């Protein structure tokens, strides 16, 4: 067994990952937490899809649902045209092709295993020989910019945060996946290190022909790395579209507020009024109608009555707002 | 919160049932005929059979258990095989004695443990801390019944300061608060308090140390609070956990005083139980363990409740 990259099947036009009506409700009757509630989107081959949103909006839950680490309440995941689950692509096979990198670089590594053992774990599980695994570990370490001789036999606590996150990325690459889910991969890192890791991600994507699902609360980072961006609010998709279009012409009031919340980086043009008041709401008590209406500056009477459908703004850009159509494409 | 309490109380019922079944089986599986408790050693077979029938011991085990359970649910703990007496009055007085002893031991062990533990936790790494740790470890490491024996020899026999056994000067079994009764409780209570003292010291050292390491302590210091103000915060934060440990320890004191009660001939549940075990007085054994474990379960419930009252995060 060599664990070669799995070849493409459906051609470039077929989305690599299709998520349909994915939902996850926690808790029993009475206090249901609708962490993810009917989310649909696609990741195209070779692209990076960014997901942004405030804490509690369901972005991390979405990633774990896709990965199959938790079972969805409803919905389906289709990978390269094939349904994932019984009758379709087996979960084991799916997991070979999709890997994940977590935010906490320390918690993501088993403290009792050396770097080499951590990276080599998945290949060994999938039956790669010891020698082949070792060779692959060395290649991967080199690929993420860590000198194999120096790092292979170390333990996680001997590494800096940036180095550990490189190891995590190397580990995610070990099975030659086609899609990597990155859940806040740079949020815990210092700025100087963040840049290093982002550069690395860009390089690896090209080198290994990867697609990314990049989750972050940092709009600047998402803007930098993504091809398309999905904005989540309270378990729902608020807006999705190509990064330039979405950042230049946000159609959902929430997206606009999010963008306006970024520091200006210009001492002469500081923000003067907060774009949103109050905190992100708790997904236990979901407001009726549009979930954003209690915080929305442009709220209308119908917003609390009915939930807006996704509106197509242009070919690739959609938003879930009653006002969306009025925004010029 | 009421729903939580109710659920917890309901939840303890199957536990109690399983506990009593466990005791029941334990005694019946064991070698030795329970009938020996009431018969002289040389009783002939016909007498044995007759007595067995009279006490229902000839019936199959599930039937015996069913009958017993039915009676207990109707408030009848049954009669002792050995004395023929109703169990409840005996058990009641034994429970009261054990409770008095456990409470006395708690009154010695808990404050001392709290004091040593808090000081040690507040001065982690200092010599005071090390001394308290050694004391705590010594407390949980000493075979306490042995300590009791040594203390009896010193304080009762050689110095003749305190009585060596029993619960009261007149043997009446009625507990009162006078020197005569208090003097009887001193030695067994000290003996019994050693282990909880050690455990409370250890736990409080950990709790207080952890609290003092938390961020909000820096906030409080940053607010300019003096030691007194800080202590109020530490106490309120430590209380729920400390209470939980003490509650559990009180339960252990209730059930774990067998050895001490044996050494001091203290007429409590430990002695009752010990006696029942050796005599295979099944009804007494079952009733005692049932009541003790119900007490334990109830105590845990009470501790949960108190914890919820003290810790706003646990209220629901």
């Amino acid at each position, binding site marked *: 067994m060599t664990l070669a990259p799995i070849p493409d099947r459906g051609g470039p036009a077929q989305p690599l990952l299709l998520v349909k009506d994915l939902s996850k409700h926690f808790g029993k009757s009475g206090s249901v937490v609708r962490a993810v509630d009917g989310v649909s989107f696609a990741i195209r081959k070779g692209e990076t899809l960014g997901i942004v949103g*405030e*804490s509690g909006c369901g972005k991390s839950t979405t990633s774990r649902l896709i990965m199959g680490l938790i079972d969805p309440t409803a919905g389906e995941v289709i990978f390269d045209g094939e349904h994932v689950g019984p009758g379709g692509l087996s979960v084991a096979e799916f997991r070979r092709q999709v890997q994940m990198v977590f935010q906490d670089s320390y918690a993501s590594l088993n403290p009792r295993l050396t770097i080499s053992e951590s990276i080599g774990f998945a290949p060994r599980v999938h039956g790669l020989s010891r020698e082949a695994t070792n060779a692959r570990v060395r290649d991967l370490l080199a690929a993420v910019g860590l000198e194999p001789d120096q790092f292979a036999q170390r333990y996680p606590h001997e590494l*800096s945060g*940036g*180095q550990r996150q490189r190891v995590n990325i190397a580990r995610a690459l070990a099975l030659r996946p086609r899609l990597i889910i990155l859940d806040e991969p740079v949020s815990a890192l*210092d*700025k*100087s*290190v*963040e*840049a*290093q890791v*982002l*550069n690395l991600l*860009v390089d690896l994507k090209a080198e290994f022909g990867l697609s990314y699902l990049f989750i972050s*609360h*940092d709009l*600047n980072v998402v*803007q*930098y790395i993504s091809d398309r961006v999905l904005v989540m609010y309270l378990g729902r998709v608020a807006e999705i579209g190509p*990064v*330039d279009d979405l*950042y230049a012409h946000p159609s959902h009031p929430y997206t606009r*507020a*999010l963008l306006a*919340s*970024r*520091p*200006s*980086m*210009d*001492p002469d043009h500081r*923000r*003067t009024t*907060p*774009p*949103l*008041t109050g*905190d*992100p709401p708790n997904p236990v008590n979901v407001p009726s109608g549009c979930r954003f209406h209690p915080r929305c500056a442009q709220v209308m009477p119908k917003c609390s009555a009915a939930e807006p459908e996704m509106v197509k703004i242009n070919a690739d850009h959609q938003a879930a707002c009653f006002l969306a159509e009025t925004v010029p494409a | 919160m009421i729903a939580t309490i109710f659920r917890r109380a309901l939840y303890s019922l199957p536990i109690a049932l399983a506990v009593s079944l466990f005791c029941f089986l334990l005694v019946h599986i064991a070698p030795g005929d329970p009938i020996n408790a009431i018969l002289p050693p040389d009783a002939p077979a016909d007498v044995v059979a007759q007595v067995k029938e009279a006490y229902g011991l000839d019936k199959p085990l599930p039937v015996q258990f069913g009958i017993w359970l039915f009676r207990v649910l109707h408030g009848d703990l049954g009669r002792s095989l050995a004395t023929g007496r109703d169990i409840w009055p005996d058990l009641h007085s034994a429970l009261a004695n054990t409770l008095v002893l456990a409470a006395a031991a708690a009154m010695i062990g808990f404050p001392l443990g709290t004091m040593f533990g808090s000081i040690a936790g507040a001065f982690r790494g200092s010599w005071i801390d090390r001394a308290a740790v050694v004391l705590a470890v010594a407390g949980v490491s000493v075979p306490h019944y042995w300590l009791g024996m040594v203390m009896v020899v010193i304080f009762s026999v050689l110095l003749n300061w305190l009585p060596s056994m029993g619960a009261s000067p007149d043997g009446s079994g009625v507990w009162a608060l006078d020197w005569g009764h208090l003097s009887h409780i001193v030695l067994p209570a000290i003996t019994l308090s050693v282990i909880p003292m050690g455990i409370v010291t250890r736990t409080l050292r950990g709790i207080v140390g952890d609290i003092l390491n*938390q*961020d*909000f302590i*820096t*906030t*409080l*210091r*940053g*607010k*300019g*609070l*003096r030691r007194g*103000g800080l202590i109020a*915060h530490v106490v*309120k*934060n430590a209380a*729920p956990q400390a209470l939980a440990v003490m509650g559990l320890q009180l339960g252990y004191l209730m059930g774990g005083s067998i050895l001490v009660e044996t050494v001091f001939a203290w007429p409590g549940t430990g002695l009752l139980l010990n006696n029942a075990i050796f005599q295979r007085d099944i009804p007494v054994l079952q009733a005692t363990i049932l009541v003790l474990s119900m007490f334990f379960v109830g105590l845990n419930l009470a501790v949960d409740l108190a914890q919820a009252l003290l*810790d*706003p*995060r646990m209220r629901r």
Partner: protein
Amino acid sequence: MSNLVHVRDLTVKFVSRDRTVHAVNGVDFDLDQGEVLCILGESGSGKSVTLRALMRLNPPTRTVMTGTLNVGGQDIITASDREIESIRGRSVAMVFQEPMTALDPVFTIGQQIRETVIRHEGVSKADAHKRALELLDLVQIPSAERRLAAYPHELSGGLRQRAMIAIALSCRPKLLLADEPTTALDATVQIQILLLLRRLQRELGMGVIFVTHDLGVAGEIADRIAVMYAGRFVEEGAVREVMRHAKHPYTQGLLGATVHEGMRGKRLTTIIGSPPNLANLPTGCAFAPRCPSADAACLEAVPGLDGAFGAHRARCIHQPAEAMA
């Protein structure tokens, strides 16, 4: 000196049995009434330790401080415990990064505000309560009466941080110390808190020292920025100067590494390597091992901060004439 804060050659060491960590290694600065200084630095740069040193809040048993440290005319290093305790919370107050852990979980918000007021002003409980209501109003917490009776865990992250600010402001301090107060918050909440702090600072005329690792945050709130690296200020100056004309290679690197609009598709500038071990500092410029323009001279001695106080100064012997256009 009439400066609110006057610091000269401050060093802070943490001494334990096995090692000594040199967290702060000679910091000089002044702060005037009504001025906002942002100390910018990455983890382990010593920014929080410096901040805490101003209130002597570092762990008392292991901390060794030297230098001059005056706050509101009081010498912090030599003051008695009693004196320090009466300064803390009254003339100097502090806001922490994570309000969830910085607030006592088993006391209500009201209790935690009241005890500070009572501690320093000796007022009655009723008066303290009245003051608490005013304070919640000041930090824009709605339904104040209900919030005062709430425990920290019953509030959202933003409200908790506002409550934390209310506690800090309860005795109208002259100096507010803020230790990454917005880092744990969502962007939408972060900007609310920053605006609130800015408004309060102006209204109350406080001096503020604000510690952050986020250049953007500093840009929103600072009058002056001090960039810290390995326990030293490596660059200090007015916010515009530092953000637009950074002199120190480290500051330049940080600016280049901070992702912001318009960088898409470009390669990010990075600072190679990682920060030095504070238990074992190199001689000379601490940044030299990571510096693209370092040479042998850099390792000879620690470079001094050039220029006068208040001016834009940097601690580098190879200052490029004008970096980063």
